[in-house]
Each structure stands twice: as C-alpha cells, then as structure tokens.
C-alpha cells in the first residue's frame, strides 16, 4: 500500500468544461483530464449544485443517481435553471484514493437578458445627457512592466517589446437621460470603474464615443482633492476649486456646506485629525451643494456612518426629484443601487449584460452574482 501523499505526487487531474458561461437550455459537458496515470484506471463521480444549494432539485451527482461511480471520462447535462453552478468531479484511482476538483459555471437566462436590451437611436434625443455608443476600452498590457529607462531601452534594442491586448470594455451602449438616476453594477474588475472614468472624461475610450453634456461633480475621495495638513475650511475651498466652483459661490455657500457636513465645531482643525467618515461628509457636501448636471457617486459614499449615509441618500433623492440632476451611481452594493436608481446597466467582464429598470436588472444580477 502506498500512502496518499506519494500517490498524489504520481497523478493529478483537472476538470474541463465546454463553456464557462452558457445560456439556459444549452447542454454543458464536463470532462475529466488525468495526467501521470492512464485515464482508464479511474472511476468518476460527476456532480453539480446551483447557487450553493443542497436542496432537492438544486443538485445532482452521477453517484447519487446510479448508485455507483462511472468510468465515463465525460458527462453532459442540461442545467434546469439559470444561476451560478458549481461543478464537482471526484477522481478515484484503483487504490480508492480520491481527488476532488470543482469549477464554477454561469447559466444565463437569455430570455430575461433579451427582454431588457434597449434599442438606441443613432442620434441621441435632446433629453439625453450622457450618450455612450459602442465604447470599447483596450489596454495594451506590456508583457513585462517597465519602470526604468534601462529595462525599456534593453527591451527596445532587443526588439522584445511585446504588448498583450486586454479588453476592459467591449462595445458598451447606453443613453442616460436628464434627471435620471442611473446605476452601473458589476462584480469587481468587471469594467464599471473604467466606464465611469470614460464618462468622467479622465480616460479616453479606445473605440466608440461617449458624449457628455453638462457639468460633472464627482465625489473626490480622501487623499485626492484633500490635504491632510490643511484645515477643513481650507479643504472646502481647495475641493471646490477642483470641481470648478467660483470662489464667490463657495463663499456664499460655505455655511451650507459646513451645516450639511455637520462639522461646525471642527472647521479649523487639520484634516488629519478627522475620521475618514468626516472627510467623506465634506466631499459629499461640496459636491452636492449646487445642482450639477451630473453627480457621480461611487464607493466613497460607503465610508460615512449610517446616519450620514441616510442623509446623503436623502440629498441624492432630492437631486433626483428636482429633475435637473442626473445621478450616476457605481457600486457593487446592490442594496444601495436598488434604493436610489431607476435604471441600471450591468457590466460583467467588460460585456454589457443587461440594461433596464432597476428591479429586473438587480434581480437578474443577484441571481447570478451571489
């Protein structure tokens, strides 16, 4: 008898799937791949579970169905519902030693998705304030990172300067109308911040066009438009100037900003003595003291305490109700999006998944992203 350690050093395996993402109704094939040993020498157990559930109907294994492991090296099934699936495969060799591999696969309900793509006119209407047309963002990732002239020169001389293309956004299309509250959702790294940067005008899209009509007020986070050594009052002016406010305008609304941020007693204290929540309050107060055409709200908002977050939400709601301000919310907190937004665009791995009313998109997003 050999022990497990020695044995697992001798052979290994992995699970191959026909696709990492399929639409509902399509079959999915799992295949076993073994290395270091002949594939015939194994028995297998294929299994899956939907959304991490072990309720009846939500999971299945070949062992549970037939009562024995199979010698088949691949197994095909049709997922019954949309959702996040986890696929399992047990490899068992003739000594009874077992290796289990799991792999996630997403099953999308194409009917829901199709129902909520929007037909966009070629020329956006008059009430459209942000118009995103066929926007793609391609990053050229240097296969190596050059931070020094020497490395760069050597690579250049050797002709080894290679670039990998990385598509952070792929043909994104949407219109945002004046006075609308619009949300961008997606998991981390899905490309929503890239989209936001393109709208904010700090990043140029590689392809397509993004037209923005009007002034944009972003919430500037700690460490960007704020200086820790300056007092809160000085920071209000600095921050306001960076947003493009007139000096007289800041003078005039200084008290309103302070009152909204609820920091009257602390105005002459250097910012480094503030908590991050207090800074977030100032940032929010400065950005929302007037009615910008477009207010960009991102994760910065989540720093403040519960009461202040509620106050911010109220203010955002007021701005939305005024019908003059377009609120663009970017968050992976789906609850916040559900409370504030009317319409949502879901971006996943750079692809535009779905766009439409908040309840539909968020329901679909939640069913697939948990």
């Amino acid at each position, binding site marked *: 008898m050999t022990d497990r350690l020695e044995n697992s050093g001798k052979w290994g395996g992995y699970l191959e799937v026909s696709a990492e993402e399929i639409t509902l109704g399509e079959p999915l094939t799992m295949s076993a791949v073994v290395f270091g040993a002949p594939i015939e020498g194994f028995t297998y157990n294929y299994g899956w579970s939907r959304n991490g559930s072990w309720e009846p109907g939500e999971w299945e294994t070949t062992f549970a169905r037939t009562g024995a492991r199979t010698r088949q090296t691949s197994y095909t099934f049709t997922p019954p519902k949309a959702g996040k699936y986890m696929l399992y495969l047990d490899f068992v060799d003739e000594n009874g030693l077992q290796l289990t591999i799991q792999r996630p696969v997403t099953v999308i309900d194409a009917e829901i998705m199709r129902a909520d793509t929007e037909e966009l006119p070629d020329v956006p209407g008059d009430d459209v304030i942000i118009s995103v047309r066929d926007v793609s963002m391609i990053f050229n990732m240097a296969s190596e990172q050059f931070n020094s002239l020497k490395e*760069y020169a050597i690579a250049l001389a050797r002709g080894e300067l290679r670039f990998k293309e990385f598509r952070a956004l792929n043909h994104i299309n949407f219109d945002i109308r004046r006075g609308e509250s619009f949300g961008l959702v997606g998991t981390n790294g899905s490309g929503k911040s890239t989209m936001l*940067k393109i709208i904010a005008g700090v990043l140029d899209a590689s392809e397509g066009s993004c037209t923005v009509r009007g*002034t944009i007020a972003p919430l*500037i986070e700690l460490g960007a438009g704020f200086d820790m050594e*300056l007092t809160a009052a000085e920071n209000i002016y600095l921050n306001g*100037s960076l947003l493009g*406010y*007139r000096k007289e305008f800041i003078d005039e609304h200084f008290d309103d900003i302070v009152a909204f941020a609820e920091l009257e007693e602390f105005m002459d204290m250097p910012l480094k003595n503030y908590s991050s929540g207090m800074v977030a309050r100032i940032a929010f107060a400065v950005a929302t003291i007037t009615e*910008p055409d477009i207010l960009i709200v991102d994760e910065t908002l989540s720093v403040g305490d519960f009461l202040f977050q509620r106050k911010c939400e109220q203010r955002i709601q007021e701005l939305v109700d005024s019908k003059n301000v377009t609120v663009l919310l970017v968050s992976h907190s789906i609850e916040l999006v559900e409370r504030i937004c009317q319409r949502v665009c879901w971006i996943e791995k750079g692809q535009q998944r779905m766009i439409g009313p908040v309840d539909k998109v968020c329901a679909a997003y939640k069913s697939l992203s948990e």
Partner: protein
Amino acid sequence: MAKEIEQSLTGEAMAPAASDAWYPTRQRDVYIIRQLVTRDFKLKYRRSTLGVAWSVLNPLLMMAVMAAVFSQFMAQRDPTIGNYPLYLILGNTAFTLMNDATSQGMRSIIDASSLLKKVKINRYVFPVQKVLFAVLNYVFSLVAVAIVMLFFHVLPTAHALLLPVPVALLAVFCIGLALLLSTASVFFRDVIHLWSVVITAWTYATPLFYSTNILPAWMVRLELFNPMYHYVTFIRDVMLWHQLPALSTVLGCIVCAAISLAIGIVVFRKNERKFILYI
C-alpha cells in the same frame, strides 16, 4: 435697505442656477492654480516658528558660508566681479528657483494621480502651479538679497526695475522643463533620480560662485549653451553691475525660454492622454 434687497435676492437663489456656480474653463484653471499655490504655501510654512523667514535665512546662510570660503580666492582671480556676497546670492537664489520649480514640477503629475483619475482637470495646471510656487518663494528670497545690498551699501539703480524680465523668462523656461520632466517621469520613474544628478552637475557648470573670467576660453564658449548662465547674468547685470544686459544675454534668455516652452508643450500635449494609464 439696499442690503435687505440683496439678501432677499440671494435668499431666492438658494437653489443656485448651475451657470452661477461654475467658472468657464480658463478662469477655472486660474483659480485652481491659485488654490494649489495657496495650499503649498500654507503647507510649507505652517507649524514652523520662523515661517517665511526661512526663505530669507536659507539663502543668507548659504551665501555666508560660500563667501567665507571663496571671497579671498575670487577677489584675487577676478577683481571685476563686484560685491562677491551679492554676486553669490543673486546666482544662488535664481538657481534655487530653477531647481525647486523643475524638481517639484516633475513630480506634480505623479503626486496628483488620485485626483487625475477622478476629475477632469486640465493636467498642465499641476506643473505650472509648482513653477509659480517656486517663483513666489524666489520673491521672498529677494528680501535676503535686499538685506545683503543694505549691509554692503550696494544701492539699486533704475536697472533693478528690469528684474521682473529675467525672472519671468526664467519662469517660462522652467514651465517648459517642468512639462517635459513631468511627462517623462510618468512613464519612467528613474527620470526623478536622474534629474537630481543633472541638477548637481548643472550647479557646478553654472558660474554661481566663480566668474567666467577664470574659465578657459573653450569653457566660456560652452557657457553660451547653458541657459542658466544667461538668466543669472541678466539678473546680475541689473542688480549688481547696474548695467543693461548685453543683447546676446537677452536673446539667450528669450531663446532658451521659447525652445523649452515649445518642447515642453508639444511633449506634454502629445502624451497627457496616456498619463492615466501609467499613474
């Protein structure tokens, strides 16, 4: 009465019309630069007891040490040099202006990275602001120059009124360099280290504590290609030697400023859109 009306007007404007709140682009940049210079000023002098006095003391102390060491030597080698301490401090302060402006301007884009990732601001404001801040500090250091002039009874003549000309040209020269260096340092961080070496070499290559009269002829010809030589000479002409600068000096200052600014603007413009990918 008039005040009341005014108040009721502003009271009505509680929900301010958007057009009142924002500057048009050009004015906006000016106000941002002003705010940033104010910030730097406050940061530099806050919580230091002597505050702005450091801008005066620093060049005075430098001058005192260098004058003590080199006075005897330079007086023998070149009697035409004039008041040597004043010669020193005029050169040193001008060179410090260039050093501060370019070194800080170079880092300005990298330092503003988190802001540039979020807000659409014309990127040139950051290097330009650092140069203007350096000019502001130069103005304070002129107090030190005045102290030296008083101490040695060197009274300024009408020529001194021309001082803003070389300083402005030097500032333009520095803006060009700051634009160029800030662009280069975004892509290659080692430019920052390289530049400190260049500055050190440049300090010795510029007649700050020696005069060109003690240099061999080939070195003197080479100095014509040293922009700082022209700026320092212009400043000394009007402040120390009480004479109008030679035409070649004035031209040298103008040409260097123009070339530097042109290269700076072209390089910056061409690359600024790519900054965000590297910061």
